[in-house]
């Protein structure tokens, strides 16, 4: 089982560090990261493996949302199934 974490907002030092920190806290293994900074807008999409997680998936969602609020970024954590369902036949 995998989840997608998307982070969008103003670029700053240490965003990747903080987001992957939350992942490691719950033992969600980061599989892939795509990141771009356009002018000062930061956009990152992270694919994480959630099958070995130590907590409920909803706790990861809450922690990421709280981190987003703290850093002034928009962070969404969603199960990969929704993207697969919508975009592949």
């Amino acid at each position: 089982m995998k989840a997608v974490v998307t982070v969008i907002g103003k670029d700053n030092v240490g965003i990747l560090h903080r987001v992957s920190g939350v992942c490691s806290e719950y033992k969600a293994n980061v599989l892939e990261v795509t990141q771009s900074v356009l002018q000062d807008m930061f956009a990152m999409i992270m694919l994480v493996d959630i099958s070995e997680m130590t907590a409920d998936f909803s706790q990861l969602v809450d922690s990421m949302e709280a981190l987003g609020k703290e850093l002034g970024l928009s962070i969404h954590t969603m199960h990969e199934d929704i993207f697969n369902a919508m975009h592949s036949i």
Partner: protein
Amino acid sequence: MLNVYDILETIRMIQDECLDIRTITMGISLLDCIDTDIDKACGKVYEKIVRHAERLVPVGQQIEKEYGIPIINKRISVTPISMLCAVCPDGNPVKFAKALQRCADTCGVNFIGGYSALVHKGFSAGDMALIKSIPEALDVTENICSSVNIGSTKSGINMDAVKLMGQIVKESAVRTADRDCIGPAKLVVFCNAVEDNPFMAGAFHGIGEPDCEIHVGVSGPGVVRSALSKYPDASINELADIIKKTAFKITRMGQLVGARASKELGVPFGIVDLSLAPTPAIGDSVAHILEEMGLEMCGTHGTTACLAMLNDAVKKGGVMASSTVGGLSGAFIPVSEDAGMIDSAVAGVLSLEKLEAMTAVCSVGLDMIVVPGDISPETISAIIADEASIGMVNSKTTAVRLIPAINKKEGEMLEFGGLLGSGPVMSVRDKSPAKFINRGGRIPAPMQSLKN
């Protein structure tokens, strides 16, 4: 492999374009709750609904969190209550409404539908008592919805029921005049009602359905409008293709959520209803889709054609995305629940007659239309009869949900708030159809009924 563009598209649809699951509706059969003692029957109804639906809201919230997709309402539909009334002729049917309200309070659901009667060919035991109790039931409860099926393509239109429903709608408005006439906003009069509809106020659990099942109603007018806005110069058939693709994505999401809810709750998956259901929120309007297609304002000439294309394209796109499509499936045009429709009605561009024409080519019918408070019950009945005949002849579901705004006149506004929105009082003809309505009897089934 997931692609960045697809991920961002999904997030944009949810964040900026109001994409959501409108409702997860659990259909529950109450046939095994029938009892000659109405109090015992109410006890069984409460026990059965709570036993099946107590996890509906928490499971819905869990799915919302996991997929990051809002599920606006969690609802329950039940077997038409008139069937339970049939065996306890001396009991007051309102007791069932109160029992259902207790279920809604315990389970935390937004609505329970099924305070209903099916009388398209005539009244059987329990039907009359239930229908006459509707104004009181909608007055003393908050989350209970009622519907009455007064006609079908197979059986024609029961004009005695049409006459009665005109009076019931009016009485219901009078009883709730102090609360913005909310009573009739929870009451739908159907022709060709469907048994697996997840949308309110017309949801009930048909007798051909299994004991318990899960239906899903998706939404997403904002997503369709936004997709069309990227192609300002496309031809109509190109627009139809864009709508199909968008409807496919929206429906796939509904299918995913429904399948997941069904698995979590251990209840069979019923249907996905492909309707584009608007809300009064900005950017969630069906009228704005029609305007995006090139109408200066919804309700002008050309509106019916645009709506026909939209409705058809939504179905074509959605049907492949779901294993079982059902319910009403089409575009909804409730006036008070759609920001664009409200604007058009206020501007006088959208009239009752144009809405009637639009209902011939789209899902359902004259929905959430505010009419003057001094409207006669016969005029309401005649509007119901007109709309039901469109459904009967075209073999489609049509419905009427009119709200007589007591003590208000044409041009004034009625405010409900929430999903029900607000609407201007629209004009109706002042010449009386009373003699026609008072004749009673039945409009015979049309030739279309003889398909065997």
